[in-house]
């Protein structure tokens, strides 16, 4: 080959590698097998595909395709409505952007997943009575939950509702989310849930929490946050009480592709925030 052509192709492949490397560092594929992160990962895949699948380098396309297939394959195990709607969104993106052959393969995978899902929901019709646990055990279980799951739990039944009103749960959530930026006057009988809600609405945290992503300045990477902290141990030790900078899904996609798209969420801030407290949603 003539040396001129080689020189031209070199920078191209370097750019390609950069995107692919970034994508691999994002660890989207790993998140797919996590029950909690599955919808977030699917949303990121959808956004990436929507934003410009055709312009991606070849090997990145291959990764995306592979991850879409595994997303559909894992769908029956997820078995939550949030997962199903995320997968629906993903299949729509696939339908509009993928080339014919890949599209058909992916859709076949998706349809198989839906059939498997239906079979699963049918088999779970046993009428067993689960043993009732004491309230303090419930509180202990809830102490491991994130905000959305806690709010969901509060709407399940009366006994669960009572357990979720426990102040210590909301106090630790408050600490987790706001203690680094809010000074609060603690008096006896303080309603921690109210305090949390006020700060939450004030800081409009709702949108930020819908991605599962944060930026860790200690390891300089975009990570799936583990309770608002970096999953890496060293970073957690270094950062102490300070939570990560949360990122929105479209910000993650912008970082990956070097684009500057904006979010297409049309609901206003207020409505989105209030929505959390009525019917918790995971988008």
């Amino acid at each position, binding site marked *: 080959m003539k040396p001129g052509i080689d020189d031209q192709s070199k920078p191209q492949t370097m750019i390609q590698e950069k995107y692919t490397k970034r994508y691999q560092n994002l660890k989207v594929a790993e998140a797919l097998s996590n029950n909690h992160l599955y919808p977030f990962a699917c949303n990121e895949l959808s956004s990436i595909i929507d934003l410009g699948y055709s312009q991606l380098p070849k090997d990145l396309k291959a990764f995306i395709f592979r991850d879409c297939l595994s997303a559909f394959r894992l769908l029956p195990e997820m078995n*939550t*409505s949030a997962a199903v709607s995320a997968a629906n969104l993903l299949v729509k993106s696939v339908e509009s952007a993928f080339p014919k052959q890949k599209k058909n393969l992916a859709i076949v995978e998706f349809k198989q997943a839906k059939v498997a899902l239906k079979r699963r929901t049918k088999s779970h019709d046993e009428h067993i009575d689960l*043993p009732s646990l004491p309230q303090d055990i419930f509180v202990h279980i809830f102490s491991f939950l994130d905000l959305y799951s806690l709010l969901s739990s*509060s709407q399940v039944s009366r006994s669960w509702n009572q357990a979720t009103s426990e102040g210590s749960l909301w106090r630790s959530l408050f600490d987790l989310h706001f203690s680094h930026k809010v000074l609060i006057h603690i008096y006896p009988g303080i309603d921690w849930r109210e305090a949390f*809600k006020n700060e939450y609405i004030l800081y409009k945290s709702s949108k930020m929490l819908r991605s599962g992503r944060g930026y860790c300045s200690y390891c300089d990477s975009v990570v799936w946050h583990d309770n608002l902290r970096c999953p890496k141990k060293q970073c957690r030790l270094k950062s102490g009480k300070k939570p990560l900078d949360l990122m929105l899904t479209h910000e993650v996609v912008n970082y990956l592709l070097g684009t500057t798209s904006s979010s297409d969420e049309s609901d206003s801030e207020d*409505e989105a925030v209030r*929505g959390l407290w009525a019917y918790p949603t995971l988008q």
Partner: protein
Amino acid sequence: MSESDLAIIKPAMMKSYIWLETSDGSIQQVEQEVAMFCPLICHQALQKGGGSSKNNAISLPQKVNPAMLSLIFDYCRFHQLPGRSNKERKVYDEKFMRMDTKRLCELTSAADSLQLKPLVDLTSRALARIIEGKTPEEIREIFHLPDDLTEEEKLEPLKNTMDDPRIRLLNRLYAKKRKELKERVKLKSIEVEERVDERSVDDLLSFINGRDHKVVNTSKSKKKNKKRKEHRNGTCKVSNKDSHNLHSKQRSVDETSSSLGGVSNLHNIEDDIFSKKAEFEDGYIDDEIDPALKEMLDREVEDFARRLNSSWVLSVGQERQPVHFSINGNGGTRRLTDTHTLLDIAIDD
């Protein structure tokens, strides 16, 4: 080994057993070091000298059945050996936790009654992982729990926004409007009867014209009106059931799929508002509205419908015929636009 050798061996090397009795009456013996891992058994054995013989068996709490007991002792047997590395323990724990939800609950309950905190932690985390990311309906399915909260209680966190000045203002306006309504209704009691007849004619007309959803609409709204008059209490459940068809449709969609955040919260604010004004149901106030205001209300209806993203509502709005008829059909949307107009009026004041 000879007998003399055995005598030299320290007593600690000999396996001693503790006798335990489970809730179903069966008695079994377990190696001491395994059983002593459980604080409750330890306490009983040391302080009260129990478990030394078959007759003196320690009776375990009711929640511990034999199956769970053997599971727990498997756990204890593994962990009480000091020679295990942390990684080994972690791997064992993860494998151990793979069981169905029912057994997990039983295990948690049993471990808790035996005061075995590490196992309680483990099972709690496993249960939390199951609950994570699920909607209330899904959680109820998994744990077979009854749906025994009223709508009001579910919206409770939102209710605390009564401190919101907008809602306080709305309530004041509703109180005023309610008074006016009552007076008007008294005057119009005769006309109400006539209107009922007219409506039934319209029913037939629309049915003949083949607009099935209209029929559903009116019958529902008629029932609504009747219900409202009978149940003049303020319970959210009733008023929510009575409330606008479009909301009930939207609500069922929301409850099944949890991905309509922007929409669901919108109608929840309204539900809250509407629960406060249970008596404010009749659409008869619209008789006084002049055409100009009506047009404005129409526009607000469509705007509202767009926001709710429901094509059904739009179609109803477009096919409107006689005023009173359609208003009852659109009872829900009317109410919302009324609140909007009331708010505007108040602000203008």
